[in-house]
């Protein structure tokens, strides 16, 4: 059985080729679609007897249907948000069935990015559960002729204690469905002490499917009559096909045809890249055919891009005055007084996502409408781009969301989904487009290459009296506006404009950088390079001042206070400041706690070993990390231990949260050890795991200890905030162990081996 949905007992037909021993593909075919109706809104929750919310339905057999409207890529949002519903409903988790939503704006935002699924949907989930619970209580009270205030719920039942009566949710569903849906003000939410699941957590709803190979990812989607496609994209962004010869490709057994795809009109946004597709009876034949296309390219203006020269340009930019994004006091005046001035340049190259599941999508164009199945973080954007590419209404695009074999932000950009739809229209059959690993590495939306120039003057006790930081990186906004060269507030805010130090003179600047590849969000995004520069520079200053790095860091964070962003464009990750103020006391607390947990200053570190510390707030969560490294005589780096403390407000699923922070340390390990994408003449040099290595089992932290601060603050981000402080703390630990400063990532450039 698929984990995506249980194929419904009503309404839906099962789809897909079912070959010997194959899975039943749990995707829904909508009979309405082919009859020309509008987009259907058919979930089992919608059709359940009691369905007071788009997210929830209850049937007379007691089954509770909960709709997961966010994509599942390993963070457990597909489990954790339904847990909130189930808790507020007082439902038995074993009787909950989770359905994956199709793209549909009635669920609100579905772009599963920015570590905000819990933050943005916690209230909606609670409300859904509380609404149904309210109606079930009302129904029971009416049946028993008692005041509703005398009734309460226990696991999956309404109870009237004084008369010792109980009624199950299933048996109450019909009566409850006849009652008006209560307004939010009428709802009574459970007391924290009564929570069953929130704060305790659950393993993934899909766990068994994940370990038995039954889970359905985009790569596993199949439908009747589908063909496979592999696309040769222009090697340089914006390039075009001059000519190609399909003769040899068509000789490959299984190859059916070749199909040119038009180049995109800038800006690239989420449009397919263009190129030539090979259509075949199986994936391998399509791959083989592609090798024989003999394409001649017009590379266009980005052919001038060379990442080595570009690095120098970025650095020069940061050595000149840029746009001021935040200013306190007068740093220039302070510097001009003279004193102990320290400067450092930091650099992080382009980074690729390299999700384990390469990009893949299946789409069928039929009768002017498209049905797509894709591992997408952003199904509504997939609808949008498909409708634009094919010139059909958005309502005529159904986008099913499969499980995602990793996302990390890459799968928020649905260029590959649109590619499948475009090809299906040209071929007249369902098309599954499969990107190779080489395609995935070469045609990414890369995390921006970034240069950071840091300057500080140290006063009494080594504390900075003036601080200047200047960055340059091609902005993500460049994919939507070819003229965009400056960092935008949404990315400058990520650990740059919000440097939390208590400094009398501070100037923060950003310089221009033109993009020559597609730039996009990657787990933690701009926080990666910003935290790297600030937290490593802090460590450098601590050593320059002859102070303990922990002490020094705490000194710079200063006394607990709320940062005032008056006059600063600081979007706070889209969250209101009253609910999510920037509180330095919380950063201080996680820093002090991680020092304690890691035994900072108490454990002995011999030759070639050392520890590093860093603290950072991102996606509204406060995290501090201590990394311990060992470097042997051959220069090989081991990471015996990582301690990390997080304050993410209310944590719904602690177990999944620990897993995310363990994973963040591994993700950060890849960035520090080997993460680097380069380009020559506009084309990406890397292609697969031999030249874009990611961390393997022996290279990662042997043990990552994750500590969660118990907090009443509203929920904040989990998936991303672990990466930035890890990266910086790891680099600081390498210095502690070797005396070598990491200013250019990755450390392959450090010459340790």
């Amino acid at each position, binding site marked *: 059985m698929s984990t995506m949905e249980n194929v419904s007992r009503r309404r839906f037909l099962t789809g897909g080729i079912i070959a010997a021993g194959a899975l039943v593909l749990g995707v829904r075919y909508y009979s309405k679609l082919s009859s020309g109706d509008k987009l259907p809104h058919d979930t089992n929750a919608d059709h359940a007897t009691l369905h007071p919310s788009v997210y929830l339905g209850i049937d007379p057999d007691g089954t509770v249907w909960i709709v997961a409207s966010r994509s599942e890529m390993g963070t457990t949002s597909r489990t954790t948000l339904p847990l909130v519903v189930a808790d507020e409903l007082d439902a038995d988790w074993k009787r909950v069935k989770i359905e994956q939503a199709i793209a549909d704006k009635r669920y609100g935002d579905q772009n599963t990015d920015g570590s905000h699924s819990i933050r943005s949907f916690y209230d909606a989930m609670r409300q859904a559960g509380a609404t149904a619970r309210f109606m079930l209580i009302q129904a029971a009270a009416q049946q028993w002729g008692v005041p509703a205030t005398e009734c309460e719920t226990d696991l999956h039942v309404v109870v009237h204690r004084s008369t010792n009566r109980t009624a199950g949710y299933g048996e109450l569903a019909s009566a409850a469905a006849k009652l008006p849906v209560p307004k939010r003000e009428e709802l009574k939410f459970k007391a924290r002490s009564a929570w069953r699941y929130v704060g305790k957590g659950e393993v*993934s709803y899909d*766990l068994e499917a994940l*370990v038995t*190979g039954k889970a359905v990812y985009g790569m596993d989607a199949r439908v009747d009559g589908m063909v496979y496609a592999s696309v040769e994209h222009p090697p340089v962004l914006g390039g075009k096909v001059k000519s190609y010869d399909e003769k040899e490709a068509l000789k490959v*057994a299984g190859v059916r045809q070749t199909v040119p795809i038009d180049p995109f009109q800038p800006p690239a946004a989420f449009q397919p890249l263009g190129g030539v597709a090979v259509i075949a009876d199986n994936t*391998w*034949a399509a791959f083989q055919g592609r090798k024989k296309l003999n394409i001649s390219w017009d590379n266009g203006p980005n052919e001038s891009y060379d990442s080595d020269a570009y690095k120098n340009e970025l650095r020069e930019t940061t050595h000149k005055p840029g746009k001021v994004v935040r200013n306190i006091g007068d740093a220039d005046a302070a510097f001009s007084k003279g004193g102990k001035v320290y400067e450092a340049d930091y650099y992080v190259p382009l980074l690729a996502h390299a999700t384990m599941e390469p990009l893949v999508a299946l789409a069928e164009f039929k009768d002017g409408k498209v049905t797509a199945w894709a591992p997408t973080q952003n199904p509504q954007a997939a609808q949008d781009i498909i409708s634009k590419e094919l010139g059909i209404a958005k309502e005529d695009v159904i986008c099913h969301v499969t499980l995602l074999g990793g996302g990390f932000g890459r799968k928020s950009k649905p260029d590959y989904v649109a590619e499948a739809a475009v090809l299906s229209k040209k071929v007249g059959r369902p098309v599954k487009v499969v990107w190779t690993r080489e395609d995935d590495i070469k045609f990414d939306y890369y995390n921006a290459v970034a240069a950071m120039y840091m300057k500080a003057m140290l006063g009494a006790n080594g504390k900075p009296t003036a601080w200047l930081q200047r960055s340059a990186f091609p902005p993500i906004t460049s994919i939507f506006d070819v003229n965009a060269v400056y960092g935008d507030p949404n990315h400058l805010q990520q650990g740059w404009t919000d440097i939390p130090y208590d400094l009398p003179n501070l100037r923060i600047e950003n310089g221009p950088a033109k993009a020559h590849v597609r730039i996009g969000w990657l787990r933690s995004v701009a926080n990666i390079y910003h935290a790297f520069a600030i937290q490593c520079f802090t460590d450098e200053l601590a050593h320059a001042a002859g102070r303990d790095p922990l002490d020094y860091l705490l000194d710079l964070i200063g006394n607990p206070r709320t940062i005032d962003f008056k006059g600063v464009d600081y979007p706070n990750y889209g969250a209101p400041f009253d609910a999510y103020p920037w509180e330095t006391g919380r950063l201080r607390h996680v820093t002090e706690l991680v020092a304690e947990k890691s035994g900072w200053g108490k454990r002995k570190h011999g030759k070639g070993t050392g520890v590093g510390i860093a603290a950072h707030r991102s996606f509204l969560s406060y995290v501090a990390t201590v990394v311990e490294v060992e470097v042997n005589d051959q220069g090989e780096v081991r990471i015996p231990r990582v301690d990390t403390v997080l304050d993410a407000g209310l944590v719904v699923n602690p177990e999944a949260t620990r*897993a995310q922070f363990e994973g963040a340390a591994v993700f950060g390990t890849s960035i520090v050890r080997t993460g680097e994408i380069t380009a020559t003449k506009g084309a990406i040099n890397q292609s697969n795991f031999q030249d874009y290595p990611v961390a393997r089992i022996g290279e990662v932290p042997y043990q990552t200890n994750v500590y969660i601060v118990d907090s009443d603050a509203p929920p904040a981000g989990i998936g991303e905030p672990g990466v930035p402080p890890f990266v910086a703390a790891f680099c600081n630990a390498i210095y502690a162990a070797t005396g070598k400063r990491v200013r250019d990532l990755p450390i392959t450039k450090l010459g340790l081996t």
Partner: protein
Amino acid sequence: MIQLKVNGAVQSFDGEPEMPLLWYLRDVLALTGSKFGCGVGLCGACTVHVNGQATRSCVTVMRDTAGKEVTTIEGLETNGLHPVQKAWMQINVPQCGYCQVGQIMQAAALLNSKKKPSDHEIDEAMSGNICRCGTYQRIRAAIKAASGEMA
């Protein structure tokens, strides 16, 4: 015509003998548990057992499977869950899960040849299997848990 056994059933293949086993399993037999990750034997997502040995099916061509017994995740255990799968659940290993089938097949082969692998032996055996979510710490713990179970 190539004859082989897949999960105990005899299969005949008359297609391109250079086709990698992975694509035969996935596209022809629709056994989609084994995953495509890199296509060149660098990530381990496609790991299956060929005559009991952990093998990268993406670089094993059909010609070389003649007369062999192939076991995929779908056939790893016909009676409930394999001890390695149970351990994976007990330790809550998967995040996105995409690589985990390959990890499990690799771990099962390791434990078949080595009842109580050391940390070093686990790292050696598992170093060809990439997990981008970063579940390695739990993978190691789960292998140890399964090792206790199977001993």
